[in-house]
């Protein structure tokens, strides 16, 4: 771990991500994967400090400085492990994330007493049923995919859907 720590300069992914700060947590929307992630305060701090210039030891020192508490390096690794799993870090070759940094392992080691462990969760909210608006054939053609899938006016049972091989919306 020591050797890995010295060379590993984690960098937060910024491209195609949109964030919204909420009380006590940070929400991250991945525009590529259309997923929402929730970072608790600890993991959000670590993620923000991952600028590609700090080592894991330096990130740990930042946390110690912030919380005014001794912090085990494994807590930072736990955060990085989760951030990497959800593609929130820029890809780094040659770094392997070990299972020894699982939340359960750290709790067993008694590291979750003074501060909250970093947690990154993927939000799995049920899909909201949308009201399918009826569109004219002309209006359907102006949609940008994903197509609405709603009915086409005066077109029988045709729906405004993606036209195969053309990547345009069409009443079919």
């Amino acid at each position: 771990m020591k050797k890995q720590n010295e060379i590993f300069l984690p960098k937060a992914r910024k491209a195609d991500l949109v964030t919204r700060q909420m009380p006590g947590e940070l929400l991250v929307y991945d525009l590529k994967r259309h997923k929402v992630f929730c970072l608790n305060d600890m993991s959000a701090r670590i993620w923000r400090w991952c600028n590609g210039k700090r080592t894991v030891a330096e990130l740990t020192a930042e946390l110690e400085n912030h919380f005014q508490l001794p912090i085990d390096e494994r807590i930072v690794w736990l955060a990085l492990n989760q951030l990497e799993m959800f593609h929130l870090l820029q890809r780094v070759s040659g770094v392997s994330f070990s299972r020894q940094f699982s939340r359960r392992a750290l709790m067993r080691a008694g590291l979750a007493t003074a501060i909250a462990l970093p947690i990154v969760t993927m939000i799995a909210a049920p899909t909201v049923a949308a009201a399918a608006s009826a569109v004219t054939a002309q209006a359907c053609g102006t949609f940008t995919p994903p197509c609405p899938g709603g009915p086409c006016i005066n077109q029988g049972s045709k729906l405004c859907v993606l036209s195969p091989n053309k990547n345009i919306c069409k009443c079919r």
Partner: protein
Amino acid sequence: MIQPTSLNSNISKSHFGGCLIARMLERSWRAVPGPLSISPEDIHEVAPQLLATGTGALAWHCIQSLDPPSTGPFLDLRNAYRQHAAESAVHQINTSDIFTRVRAAGIEPVLFKGWGLARLYPDAGLRPYGDIDLWVEDLQELSAALPSGDERVYCVDPHVSFYPQYERSFDDVMRNSHLVNLDDVRVRVPADEDQLRFICLHFLFHGAWRPLWLCDIALMVELTDSKFDWDRCLGGKRKHADWIACAIGLAHQLLGADVSGTPVEKRAQTLPRWLTTAVLKQWEKGNGMSLAESLSFSLPRRLLNPRTLVSAISEHWRNPIQASVEVNAWFNESPRLFFQFVSAFPRIPEFIKYFGTEIRRA
């Protein structure tokens, strides 16, 4: 923790699920929603319907101060709020992007619903986000200005007209519209009077199936002040003004919207009996069929199975609200069955044709 409470005695035993949704969403659009009148067990029961119809976050807003457990349906409601909050950030970027693009092409659209409504809520995460509804003069021009190919990342729903009962021209709406700031972009939204009129008609034409739409109406009505021009909002044919008054009346009777001092106050107290029942019944049932949707999307795969065919046909039966607006009927005490039959007739030939095609295909 949420304390169990007995249900209000005037909740009807029939349409129980619809009544629970109404109780859950009472005053949910306010910054401080007020006391909850349903029990945790009831929330368990009604959560799937709330989530499916886009009101999970509003429900969370009502219960979050009661320190609910982070498990089961309570977690689902919280996650719906988180999801909408994150999506709101994306939706805002997309909305400002589309306005920048179309303005560069010399087009000035008016944004209906979406962010135009969501911005009125006390929190960006309380409402789901979908298409970007733009009213424009010319669809071809808009189409040319929209992002193409790999650039396409959001769905624009363009309109050149709305329901005839809206009785407003593009020029008229444009003249009364105003600009609001969204980050660095000025987004054009309709006047509150035109927006409220539109969302009331939209709610009725879609058969009132989404409780979220009634929360939108309640929110807008409670935001009206002395400057709000009710004559403009209700202006036009008397029948359609009455429809709008009835939609606002439903927000009052079912969700507790404050309509005191408005011109619709009296009408809100005396709604036709069938109207409230129809909404509660529809909410209990869940998703409905949209305006001009003659055949449901799932129909083809169900047509040839006798058991599912019966349910498919029943789904295509318009509820009293949708039938009434489709045949342009008054909202009075007369029975609605006749209107439901009348609204079904135009769709029968198409249904039979579709059925015939499926049989031949089989």
